């Protein structure tokens, strides 16, 4: 098991370098002169040259790239063009909001998705099943930002039940969490249904039934346990995706998370912030995926035995 963990960690290192390279390359071709952005129009010639040297812009691409990596390993992503403060200081305080949103989203969507999926599978072809299947199909085609707008119209503007933007109480999180959780719950319900139906056709289910186990026991003890395997992977992936993919949701609901910060920075062409936060989110994504794989390897007896024997 430890060998597996170690190998996975080693594989991550080149990928992190590649991510930094890709981000660095994209930002390098982004138009806009940082010097002009910081100093404004018509600055004195001396100041321009000093700043260019300070930002390292007088050096060739690869020298700048290696300097960037060297600093990035120390969590130093340079200074924000706008605030002239270290990028990481700007990102870190915004992480809890994004993390909370992701945790709530994944909890709600997993619980909802798995329960609906089980109902759907157990009552295959019933009215409930058909409705659920069709609803999940529709939600796969609804853009996230439009769902946000619709929720705001219904729950804030028409019913006046929930606040449409800002932070302060947990009530401010209800609509953003719903907006992110509904589509992913719909997807999870579909996967759970397929998995459950597949497992229910296995011979050990027939054996359990033949032994006289109650239907409840067959479903929860025998079928669900086996169907849950791929669901764990999907829930983990969707948690990782929620961390990086809630930019527009955060923007619409005015949540001060990393996603909202990135969007503002992209629009202001604040390159160091965009680069720093992209790398930050990608590394977190990688760590999450690693944890998911490890959890999977831990739960799955066949995988576990394969690695413990080595």
């Amino acid at each position, binding site marked *: 098991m430890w060998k597996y963990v170690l190998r996975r960690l080693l594989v991550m290192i080149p*990928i992190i370098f*590649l*991510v930094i390279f890709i981000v660095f390359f*994209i930002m390098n071709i982004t138009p806009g002169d940082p010097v002009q952005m910081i100093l404004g129009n018509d600055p004195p010639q001396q100041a321009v040259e000093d700043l260019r040297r300070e930002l390292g812009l007088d050096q060739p691409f690869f020298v700048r790239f290696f300097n960037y990596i060297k600093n990035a390993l120390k969590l130093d992503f340079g200074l924000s063009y706008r605030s002239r403060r270290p990028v990481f200081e700007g990102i870190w305080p915004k992480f809890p909001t994004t993390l909370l949103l992701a945790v709530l989203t994944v909890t709600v969507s997993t619980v909802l998705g798995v329960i609906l999926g089980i109902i759907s599978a157990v009552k295959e072809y019933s009215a409930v099943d058909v409705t659920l299947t069709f609803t999940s*199909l529709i939600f796969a*085609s609804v853009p996230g930002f439009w769902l946000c707008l619709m929720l705001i*119209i219904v729950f804030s503007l028409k019913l006046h039940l929930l606040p449409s933007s800002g932070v302060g109480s947990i009530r401010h999180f209800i609509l953003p969490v719903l907006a992110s959780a509904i589509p992913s719950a719909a997807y999870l319900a579909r996967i759970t249904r397929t998995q459950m139906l597949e497992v229910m056709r296995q011979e050990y289910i027939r054996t359990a039934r033949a032994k006289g186990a109650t239907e409840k026991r067959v479903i929860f003890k025998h079928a669900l346990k086996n169907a849950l395997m791929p669901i764990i992977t999907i829930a983990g992936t969707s948690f990782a995706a929620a961390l990086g993919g809630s930019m527009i949701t955060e923007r619409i609901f005015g949540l001060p998370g990393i996603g909202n910060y990135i969007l503002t920075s992209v*629009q202001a062409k604040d390159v160091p912030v*965009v680069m720093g936060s992209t790398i930050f989110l990608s590394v977190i*994504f990688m760590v999450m995926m690693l944890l998911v794989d490890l959890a999977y390897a831990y739960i799955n007896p066949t995988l576990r035995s394969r690695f413990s024997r080595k």
Partner: protein
Amino acid sequence: MFKRKKKKDLASARPSGFADIWFRFRKNKLALAGLITVIIIALFAIFADVLADYDAMAIDQHPEIRLQGPSGEHILGTDGYGRDMFARIVHGSRYSLTFALACTAISLIGGTLVGATAAYVGGAVDSVIMRVLDAFHCMPAMLLTISLSSALGVGLKSIIIALSISGIPGYARIVRSVMLTISQQEYIEAAKACGFGSLRIIVGHMVPNAISILIVNAMMSMAGLIMSAASLSYIGMGIQAPAPEWGAMLQEGQTYMREHFSMVLIPGLAIVITALSFNLLGDGLSEALDPRMKD
């Protein structure tokens, strides 16, 4: 009894190919509905200029008739600048279909080149390509698209490039794994045993078998592309107002959503219906093209 039935089925079976696929596709009513809707949307896009004049109805502002409800003259009403909503939706379909088709084509070609190279050359080249694809996979997709489009600037061309590049790694992975699986199949071995050349094996046997998987994935990705393009325009990083792009229309309509929620309802429904049709079509195709479903 069983044997005879089998024989009869074989005799009545259609020749494998387009007719066979169509026969299976037709049985799926939802998929058929998806196909018909896609065709209708495509017709709207093609004949947009016949249905509504672009400049006069979708762009020119008429403040005196702003924010009107549906009427005989404006069947979906007018927006905040007095422009006909129906004309704007119809012309907006051109953007969405262009994104879907162009990005899918570019990603598909790019992904096939990369994936086939990795699978065919193998060794160190394969490892390097796979690590690069892993790196792309680690970046949140929307974030990658947004950074790319900010690097390329706003406009039709840069959205297409940004979305296409974001799509390449996915196709490359699929093509690589499909190629590796197919090259180990028995029918490839049989073809080799018959003494066929590499070109004949690749073009005659590997490509036709890989293509059905690619077509299904391409169809499924179109819905996602339409939604991503609309999201980009919505946050102001794609097509800019006053162009009648659905995402840009939502961005504009948002101002009026308190009193006139149809401003955000109509463009949103246009996106949902289009994306849903492509998803249904993709679902149906995947069933029709999957040989295991053959009965």
